[in-house]
């Protein structure tokens, strides 16, 4: 071997790869620009465009309603914020119910299975209607007749069923040998679950659960059907007042501003996890 000095500049390979990268970026930019130009030029040529623009993309209406929409969205966030922790706790309990092995506790297992089957099998709107109209129909005194309470309960019941299933799949993904190793040290089943299985399982299912919680944030809008004035309902009020659909577009933009970054982040976590396991 000869002692060649390490070259100071980029290697031939690095130069080649940089050239390829530049060319790919150029092609991607060009094709995106072409598609965008086509949309910008072609869509306004449609016969109904002027009408659509006026009723869906109306600048003045948007400016007038946007602050109110944003304000109403805080209600969505608040409902999400009190539902999410309750969902997490209930889901964990249900998932653990489904894992118990003692025969005396079989009813718990059955309950866990029935619970997840029922609430994953129903449309969200249906449960919100049944609970949101049904329970206050019992003639409960204030504040117990509030649609906020019963609407939230509906969301909590449904979403904890999904989250419980995700947690259970996480528990099952932990290899049997971890349980064996823990048991071989004299650890009880409960301690094994708490200190060995759950910490690993919960970490593994963070990305999947993030996707569920993003879905929850969107489904909060369904509560508008039973009363709470959140963003979707508020947009509806503005639509009626101004005879214009732009507030709905405004609401959509507000949702996307939150959900796109969150979804991206969940995807990133998912990809990172795959790489780690890979």
């Amino acid at each position, binding site marked *: 071997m000869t002692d060649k000095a390490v070259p100071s500049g980029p290697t031939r390979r690095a130069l080649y790869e940089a050239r390829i990268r530049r060319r790919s970026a150029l092609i991607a930019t060009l094709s995106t620009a072409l598609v965008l130009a086509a949309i910008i030029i072609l869509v306004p040529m449609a016969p109904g465009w002027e009408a659509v623009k006026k009723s869906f993309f109306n600048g003045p209406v948007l400016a007038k309603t946007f602050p109110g929409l944003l304000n109403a969205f805080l209600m969505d966030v608040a409902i999400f914020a009190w539902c999410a922790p309750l969902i997490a706790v209930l889901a964990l309990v249900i998932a653990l119910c489904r894992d118990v092995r003692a025969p005396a506790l079989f009813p718990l297992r059955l309950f866990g299975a029935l619970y997840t089957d029922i609430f994953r099998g129903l449309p969200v709107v249906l449960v919100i209607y049944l609970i949101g109209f049904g329970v206050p129909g019992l003639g409960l005194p204030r504040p117990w007749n509030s649609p906020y309470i019963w609407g939230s309960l509906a969301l909590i019941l449904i979403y904890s069923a999904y989250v419980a299933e995700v947690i259970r799949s996480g528990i099952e993904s932990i290899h049997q040998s971890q349980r064996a190793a823990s048991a071989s040290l004299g650890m009880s089943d409960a301690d094994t679950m708490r200190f060995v299985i759950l*910490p*690993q399982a919960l970490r593994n299912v963070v990305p999947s659960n993030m996707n569920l919680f993003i879905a929850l944030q969107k489904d909060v809008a369904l509560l508008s059907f039973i009363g709470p004035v959140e963003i979707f309902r508020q947009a509806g009020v503005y639509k009626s007042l101004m005879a214009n659909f732009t507030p709905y577009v405004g609401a959509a933009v507000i949702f996307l501003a939150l959900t796109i970054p969150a979804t991206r982040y969940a995807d990133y976590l998912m990809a990172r996890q795959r790489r780690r396991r890979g």
Partner: protein
Amino acid sequence: MSFLSLRSVTKSFAENQVCKGIDLEVEKGQMVCLIGASGSGKSTLLRCINLLEPIDEGAILLEGTDIAEPGLDPRPVRERIGIVFQSYNLFPHMSAMENVMLAPRRVHRKTRAQLKAPVEALFARFGLAERMHHYPDQLSGGQQQRVAIIRALAMQPQIMLFDEITSALDPELVGEVLDVLRQLHAEGMTMILATHEMGFARELADKVCFLDAGRILEEGPPEQLFAAPQQERTRAFLSRIL
């Protein structure tokens, strides 16, 4: 009365009988090696002794008491019998130190402060003082396996079971793990090893048992079993492996 004795132990998985009446005597301080082809039932036998698998028939006497009695709580027994697996099975979300401390904390109700000194001493004894706070994925296979041994030892077992603990290791890492076994043997630990390391078995074992299709076909001191096997199948196995 031996320290540990197995009396006609049988064990089946569905239709497949894996242990077909095993008798084995282990004296205090002895190192007993189980050898035999893949699938002959070595791992299953060790898992039965540690009660990770329930046996079908027979008895397992530890200091004279049958620990395999159906219905007995296996946990106090497992505290007395340590086992180390081929695939280490460390808890990946805990540092080496936490791996070792978990069971003493939960089972013996000791505090971290109480455990600190003895656990650090264990790490130091097996050359891992610098690696105590590393996570399993930051350790080499040989280091992970030594942590797994320390984890089992921290429960202060009376007997240790080792299931092919060097089989998953790169050849250059086998030595450091075998050194640990030498050390334990010298300190008087009673142990049973399932192993393919014939050189090691010949060097240190007090007794070698050749398992064949769920039976101990032949057993004896290593110099006898390796030099003058009585059974044709033992001879065939040894000639294949040596």
